[in-house]
C-alpha cells in the first residue's frame, strides 16, 4: 500500500519550502545584509560610484541570494513617532482674508446701489460685510457671487467655491462645503509633501509618513533621537520674508505705527526692530538654499530667488543702498544687514550667529517651504534603541525556548510523527519570515508575540490530524487508510478554526494602529503558513517516509 500524491503537488510543496528557507535566510544575518542593502542603494544613488567601505559592505552578502529583510518596527529599532493633526481650517481663514480686497473692489463698483460697505468682526473663516443701503442687498450678493469660481474636484462638479448668504444688513461669505473638502485635500497633500521633504533632508532610514483619516499625519522616523527633535524638524513653519527696516529700538513696548510690526531680534538680546508688514520678497520665491560660510568662515545660508523674486530684490536693493533691511524668519529678525550694493542676479547669503547644524537645518527649512497650516501633535513617542534591542533579544529568547519546549512536547506525545510536525514547525517559521520580508512587512514587539503564539497554535492542526489518525487506527483501518482519513476528516475542523482566527486578524489589521497592526500581520501570515505546513508539508513528509519504510503498523 502506498500513500499517493501527484508529482506536481510534491514539487510545489518542495519549491515553497525552499523559497521559505531562502527568503528567511537574510534575516539570520540582519546587520550584514542591511549594510549590503544600504551600500547597494547608496551606490545606485551615486550613479554606480562606490567608496571602498561600500564595496566592502557589498561583499558581505552574495548578490545571488535573496536580500529582502523584515522591517523592524519603531518599538524594536528605536526612533521617533508623531501623530499630527493639521489645522485645515487655518487655510479657510487665509483664503477668506485674502478675499476681502476683491469683495471690497467688487462692491465699490456697485456703490451707487449698495452704499458704503464695511468689514465686520467675525470668526475666522467667515467674512462679514455690512452694507449701507438695505435695498441694494440683492445687487451686493450678486456682485460677491460673481467672484466665485467652480470647484475643481471630482465630487464638487458644478458647485461654486463660495457660499454667500445674508443676515440682516450683512453679507456673510464663506467657503462652500465642496470647496472645503477640496481645500482639505490640497492642504493635506501639501503638508505631507513638505514633511516628507524635511524628513528626507535629514537623511534617516525609511521614514513612514502617511495620512491617517481626514486631517491627520502619522510620522515615524527610525533611528532618530527623540520626538522633540522630529518636531523641531517638521514643526517649524519657516516663514521667511525680507522686509524694510523702519527703526531699531530696545523698548519692547514701542509703538511700531500703522502697518508695521515690532519684531524681536533672534540673536541680539533686548533689541527690537520696527519692520514694514508688507515684505519686499517672501520665502515662496526662493528656489534654493544651501548651508555655506561667510567670508569670515562663520556658518551661513546662501540662497537664490526665482526670476520675479530676483527682480524685486534687485530693484529694492538698488533703490535703498546704505539702508538696513531685515531677514525675518518666523516673526523673528535673524539679521538686519545694511545694503552695501545692489544685489542683482537674485543670490544672497544670510549670516547670523548660527552653528553649522543650525545653518544646515535653516537651509532645509527654507528649501522645503512653509507648511500651509499649523499642526497639533496628538501623540508623541520616543523609543530608545537600547530598549528596542533589549526587546529583540528577549523576544528571540522567548521564541527559541518556546519552540524547543513545544517540539519536545510534540515528540513526547507523538514520537516520530511529532518529529515530522516539528520539521513542519521550523519550515513554518521560515515561511513567516520569508513572507514578511517579501511583502516588506514590519515586525513589531507584539508581532514577535504573534509569532510565538503561532508556534503554540501551529501544531494544533497536526494535533487534530494525529488524534484523528489514532481514532481511525483504533477502529482497525489499515495504516495508509487511517492516515488518509485522518487528514480528510480533520480538515473541516481545521478550516473552520483557522478562518475564525483569520477574521480576528483582519479586524485587528483594519482597526488597529501601529504595533497592533504589526501583530495582526504576523498572526494572519502565521495562520496561512501554519495550515500549509501542518497539512501539506507533514503529509508530504509522512508519505515519503511511509513509501520508503512500508510499515505494517504505525504508532502515532
Amino acid at each position, binding site marked *: 500500500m502506498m500513500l499517493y500524491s501527484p508529482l506536481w503537488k510534491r514539487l510545489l510543496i518542495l519549491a515553497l519550502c525552499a523559497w521559505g528557507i531562502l527568503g528567511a535566510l537574510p534575516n539570520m544575518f540582519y546587520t550584514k545584509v542591511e549594510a549590503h542593502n544600504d551600500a547597494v542603494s547608496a551606490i545606485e544613488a551615486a550613479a554606480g560610484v562606490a567608496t571602498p567601505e561600500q564595496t566592502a559592505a557589498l561583499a558581505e552578502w552574495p548578490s545571488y541570494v535573496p536580500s529582502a529583510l523584515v522591517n523592524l518596527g519603531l518599538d524594536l529599532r528605536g526612533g521617533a513617532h508623531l501623530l499630527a493633526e493639521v489645522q485645515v481650517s487655518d487655510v479657510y481663514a487665509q483664503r477668506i482674508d485674502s478675499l476681502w480686497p476683491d469683495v471690497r473692489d467688487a462692491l465699490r463698483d456697485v456703490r451707487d446701489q449698495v452704499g458704503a460697505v464695511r468689514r465686520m468682526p467675525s470668526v475666522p473663516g467667515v467674512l462679514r460685510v455690512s452694507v449701507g443701503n438695505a435695498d441694494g442687498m440683492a445687487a451686493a450678493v450678486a456682485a460677491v457671487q460673481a467672484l466665485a469660481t467652480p470647484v475643481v474636484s471630482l465630487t464638487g462638479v458644478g458647485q461654486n467655491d463660495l457660499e454667500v448668504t445674508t443676515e440682516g444688513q450683512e453679507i456673510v461669505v464663506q467657503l462652500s462645503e465642496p470647496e472645503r473638502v477640496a481645500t482639505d485635500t490640497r492642504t493635506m497633500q501639501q503638508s505631507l509633501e513638505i514633511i516628507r521633504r524635511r524628513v528626507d533632508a535629514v537623511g534617516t532610514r525609511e521614514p513612514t509618513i502617511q495620512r491617517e483619516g481626514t486631517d491627520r499625519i502619522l510620522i515615524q522616523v527610525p533611528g532618530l533621537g527623540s520626538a522633540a527633535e522630529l518636531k523641531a524638524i517638521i514643526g517649524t513653519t519657516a516663514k521667511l520674508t525680507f522686509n524694510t527696516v523702519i527703526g531699531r529700538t530696545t523698548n519692547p513696548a514701542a509703538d511700531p505705527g500703522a502697518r508695521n510690526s515690532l519684531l524681536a531680534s533672534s540673536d541680539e538680546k533686548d533689541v527690537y526692530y520696527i519692520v514694514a508688514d508688507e515684505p519686499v520678497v517672501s520665502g515662496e520665491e526662493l528656489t534654493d538654499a544651501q548651508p555655506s560660510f561667510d567670508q569670515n568662515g562663520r556658518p551661513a545660508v546662501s540662497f537664490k530667488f526665482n526670476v520675479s523674486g530676483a527682480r524685486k530684490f534687485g530693484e529694492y536693493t538698488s533703490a535703498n543702498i546704505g539702508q538696513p533691511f531685515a531677514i525675518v524668519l518666523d516673526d523673528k529678525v535673524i539679521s538686519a544687514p545694511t545694503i552695501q550694493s545692489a544685489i542683482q542676479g537674485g543670490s544672497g547669503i544670510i549670516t547670523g550667529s548660527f552653528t553649522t547644524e543650525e545653518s544646515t537645518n535653516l537651509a532645509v527649512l527654507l528649501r522645503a517651504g512653509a507648511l500651509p497650516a499649523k499642526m497639533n501633535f496628538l501623540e508623541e513617542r520616543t523609543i530608545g534603541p537600547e530598549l528596542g534591542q533589549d526587546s529583540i533579544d528577549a523576544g528571540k529568547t522567548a521564541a527559541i525556548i518556546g519552540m524547543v519546549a513545544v517540539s519536545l512536547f510534540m515528540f513526547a*506525545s507523538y514520537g516520530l510523527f511529532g518529529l515530522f510536525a516539528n520539521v513542519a514547525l521550523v519550515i513554518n517559521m521560515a515561511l513567516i519570515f520569508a513572507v514578511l520580508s517579501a511583502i516588506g512587512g514590519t515586525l513589531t514587539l507584539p508581532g514577535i*508575540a504573534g509569532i510565538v503564539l503561532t508556534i503554540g497554535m501551529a501544531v494544533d492542526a497536526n494535533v487534530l490530524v494525529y488524534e484523528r489518525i489514532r481514532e481511525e487506527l483504533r477502529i482497525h483501518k489499515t495504516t495508509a487508510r487511517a492516515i488518509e482519513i485522518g487528514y480528510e476528516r480533520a480538515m473541516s475542523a481545521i478550516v473552520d478554526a483557522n478562518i475564525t482566527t483569520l477574521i480576528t486578524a483582519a479586524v485587528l489589521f483594519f482597526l488597529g494602529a501601529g504595533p497592533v497592526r504589526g501583530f495582526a500581520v504576523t498572526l494572519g501570515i502565521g495562520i496561512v503558513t501554519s495550515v500549509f505546513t501542518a497539512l501539506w508539508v507533514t503529509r508530504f513528509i509522512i508519505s515519503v517516509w511511509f513509501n520508503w519504510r512500508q510499515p505494517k503498523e504505525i504508532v502515532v
Partner: protein
Amino acid sequence: MAWRLRLAPEKTNFDFFRHQWLTFGGSILLMLAAFLFWGTEGLNYGIDFKGGTTLRTDSSQAVDVGGYRTALEGLPLGDVVITEVFDPSFRADQHVAMIRISSADSDEAVSEDGLAQVKAALSSYDPAIKFVSEETVGPKVSGELVYSSVLAVAVTSIGIMLYIWMRFEWQFALGGVLALLHDVFITVGIFAFFQIKFDLTIVAALLTILGYSINDTVVVFDRLRENLVKYKTMPLRDVMNLSVNETLSRTLMTSITTLIAVGSMMVFGGDVIRGFSFAIFMGVLLGTYSSVYVAKNIVLMIGLDRSEKPKGGKPSDHEFANIEA
C-alpha cells in the same frame, strides 16, 4: 507499543454536565465578579486610554521610588505614578522604572517644557539615569482609542458569529460567542482585580483570545455536528458529552502547546510585552475551559432542531462534513 505522553486516557467517558451547577454557575459568578471589579475598582488604564506621559528610565543605580518622588515634587504636574520594573532578562546593574505622569491640566498632554523639567530633575537626582523611552498621548486620541477598541471587540464577535452561523446552526453561533465574551470579560475582570496596566496591546490580546478561544470551541462543535449525523436518536446531552470526550485529548494538547509558547513569552519575553502575554495566557486557560463547560451548555439550553429537513431550505449540510471515508 511505544511510550507516548498522554494528557488524557485513550477513551474517556466523563459526564461534563454532571456538575453543571458548579461549572456553569461558577462561570456566571466569575463573570459577575469581573463586572463588579470592573465597575468598582475600575481598570488601571495606560496613557493610550487616559492620555498623559510615560517615561521609562534605566540606570546603573538602584531605583529609589521615594527619591524620585521627592525630586519631582514642586513641579507643576498632575498625578505621578512611579513603579520599579523587574525582569529576569535585566543585567545586574540595570535598574528600570516606569514613571507615569498625567498633566496638571486634564485637557492637555504634558508639555514639552514640563517633560524637560522632569528629566532634568531626575537627572540631577541620579546622574546615571537614562530615558530609554517616552510616550505622550493627548486626550483627543485616547478617547478615540477607547471607542475603536470597543468597536474592534464588537466587530470581531459579530464576524465570528456570522461565520459560525453560516457553517453550523444559529444556536452554535450564539453559544460560541457567549462563551467568547465570557473569556474576554473574565480576563478584563482579572486586569481590574490585580490593577494591571490596561493599554492598547491588551485590547489586541483580548481580540487574540477571541480568535483562539473560538478555535477551541469550533473543534468541539465540528465533532458535535458530525456525531449528530451519526447518532440521530441519541439524546442531545449524550451526543455532546461524547463529542467533548472524543476531542478531549486534542483540546488538552493544543492548550498545553499554546500555553507553553505563551508562557515562554511571559517569562522570557521582557517586561514591555508581559501584560500582553499574561492576558493571552489567561485567555487560553479560560478559552479551553469555556469550550468544554460553557459553549455547549448554552446550545443545550437553547435546544437544537434535529429533524431531518435541512435548515432554511438549504439543499445540503456542509461541504467538509460530508467527505466519505
